[in-house]
Each structure stands twice: as C-alpha cells, then as structure tokens.
C-alpha cells in the first residue's frame, strides 16, 4: 500500500526532536496501550503484520497528527472490531465519544516467486509492483537496483500474513543501495541497507 506511513525519503520535515534522555513513554495510558496490543497478539486475536497494517490504514490526516501510541491504539481498536470482539457502536458508547478508526483493508497476496536463492554480490532490482495491501517494501526502493550483501532466514511473508492469505515463509536479502541511486543528487552520501523479501526482487542479468 502506498500509504501515508511510507515516509522514508519524504521531504519537508524539520529537525528530529532529540534529547539525550529521551523517553519511550510519556503517560501511563501509553504503557497500557503498548501492553494491550501485545496481549491481543499473544491471545491470537491478530498477528504483528495485521497490527502494522491496521496502523498503515489510518486516515492520513489522523495518522500524521496522532502521536505514536494513539496510532497503536487506533490499530488495536480497529482490529478488535474487525475480528468481531466488539462493535464500533459499543466501543464509542463506552468511550463516550467518537473513536476514529482505520479504513478497511484491501486483499493481500501470496508469494510472487517460487523458492529462489540469491548470493552475496548479486545485483538485484526491486520489482515495480504496486499492491493495495500490506507490503514491507518502502516506496523509496521500488524499481531501484542494489547489491545483495547477505540473506536472512525465512520469515513469514507479510503481504500474506497481514491478510490471512496462505503463503510460504521466505528469506529476505540484505540489499545495499547507494543513496545516489535512490535519490540522484538529492541525498547525503550513504549506503542504505534494506531487508527485501525475495518476492519483491528480480535478478539483474
């Protein structure tokens, strides 16, 4: 999904609001939200891929203006409703007000390729696929070429896992891109390493 969450490389933002003693949490409710989404995953209500995608599906204005844990809360609430644990009406009755939710999901997909193997040093290109569901491919690498540095173990395939679609686990390649290839003459010089699922890649001859 080419959603608002896909922020890598997007311009116009100001300085990172960093302080040396930065905190993870700023209020008790944030810790409660963090605990409760984790509890729901443990109880099998939804998985991590569904959770991430529920946040990605937030209405863009809400996503951009909500803090991190409000995004987490919205994803959690949306999934509790979609999984049938509670209705929206009931949730809003208990909260005594509107409870903004994420928008509905599009269908997911299974693996694109059969089992493949890549070797360190292989030149690869990220497929130009645009899919409406969950994908762990940041838009800034779409269609771009890089070099395989290593391969990870096989992982559950997010494009399927987020949507209840059956798929095989597949490895990711650690692909090294030059910032110059990603954003010609428009980036600080660096190598950007991205874990890219085999289904997102094609080999360059």
């Amino acid at each position, binding site marked *: 999904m080419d959603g608002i969450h896909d922020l890598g490389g997007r311009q116009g933002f*100001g300085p*990172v609001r960093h302080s040396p003693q930065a905190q993870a949490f700023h209020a008790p409710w944030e810790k*409660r939200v963090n605990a409760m989404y*984790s509890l729901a995953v443990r109880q099998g209500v939804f998985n991590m891929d569904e959770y991430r995608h529920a946040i990605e599906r937030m209405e863009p204005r809400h996503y951009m203006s909500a803090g991190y844990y409000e995004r987490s809360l919205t994803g959690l609430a949306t999934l509790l409703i979609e999984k049938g*644990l509670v209705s929206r009406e009931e949730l809003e009755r208990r909260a005594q007000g509107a409870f903004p939710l994420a928008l509905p999901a599009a269908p997911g997909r299974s693996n694109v390729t059969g089992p493949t193997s890549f070797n360190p040093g292989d030149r690869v290109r990220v497929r130009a696929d645009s899919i409406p569901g969950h994908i762990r491919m940041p838009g800034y690498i779409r269609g771009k070429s890089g070099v395989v540095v290593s391969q*990870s173990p096989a992982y559950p395939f997010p494009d399927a896992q987020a949507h209840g679609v059956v798929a095989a686990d597949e490895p990711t390649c650690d692909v090294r891109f030059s910032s110059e290839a990603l954003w010609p003459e428009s980036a600080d010089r660096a190598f950007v390493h991205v*874990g890219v699922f085999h289904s997102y890649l094609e080999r360059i001859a």
Partner: protein
Amino acid sequence: MSEHNHTPGSVAPVERRVDAIQSVLEERGMKPAEFIEQANHLVEEQWVPRNGAHVVARAWTDAAFRQRLFANGREAVAELGLSMPPHHRHLVALENTATVHNVICCTLCSCTAFTIIGLPPDWYKDLEYRARVVRESRTVLREMGLALPPEVEIRVWDTTADTRYMVLPVQPPRSIGWPEEKLVELVSQDSMIGVARL
C-alpha cells in the same frame, strides 16, 4: 462492514478510549490489568538499554564472543541471559569502525531490538527521523550532535522485516583495559541505535 468515519461529534479523550479497549479485553477474560502490570515491569526493568551495554562490553573484552555475536546475534545474547520475542527472528550486530558508521531506523513504523537495546525513544518513532535519516543521514546525525568526518562511510539500516539490529560502537581508546562492569556504564542507547559515538 460499517463505514469507519461516519460518526459525528467530538472524539473521546484518549484515556477514555484506552479504558474502553481495556474493558473489552477484560470481558473476554484476557486479564488486561494483570498483563499491564507485568508489562510495566518488563519495559521499566527488564527490557533496558543496559542489556545491550552488557553485550557491547562483552564484545569489547572477549574476541571469541565478538565473533559469535556477528555469526548469530540471537544465540550470542542468549549466553548473557537475554532473550528476544518470537517475531524478532534474527539479530545482526553492526560493527562501527574508524571509517564506517552504522545507524538504524524503521521508516515504516518503529521496529527495534527492544529487549536488547531498550524500548525505542520517542524521536525514533516520530515522523522526522523516519523520513529523513535514510536520505539525509549525515545531516540528521550532525543535527543530533554527531558530526562525522567526510571520509567516514555511513550505512543506514532500515528495519523492514524480522531481522533486528544493534550497533556495536567503537570502544573509546581511553577505556581499553577497563573491566567489563565499568565498560557497561559507557554504552548509551543512542550509541547502539547509531546516533552517537562514544
């Protein structure tokens, strides 16, 4: 399927929304209050940057451990009694050198090796860092207080899958020969994310 954004009226305050969610989980028998208490203990006392500092200090003082850490991070940190959640399937330690500097991000959300280097700080999860560090790495690091000489190669690692990362900082020369317990105190969370050097 109900429409998701038809409700008029003002949005409930966030704490009331959280209470509403908790009441649903309670009714389902999931015992959220108990779990919240356990989770608070975990995030405050168990999943802390000091864990990663121990890993770093051990890697600085024990060359064989250092190699094991690079070969299989998850197994190596287990030697120190450290565990990772099931979906953190692989831990990769990124070696900083005099000429290479590694920095970790998650542009799509907030993925972090949190049981090892602690829960991610607010700025790591915020929009500015996620958008800018991949594209303006040297500038962002300088803004955050780390000015790297031009000959230092920067490698940015975007955590997009189930691999988790931690940076293995360069040991400060003044600390060579120090005991492990003293070295642990030197290692900051920022240095293991890669926005600081020690």
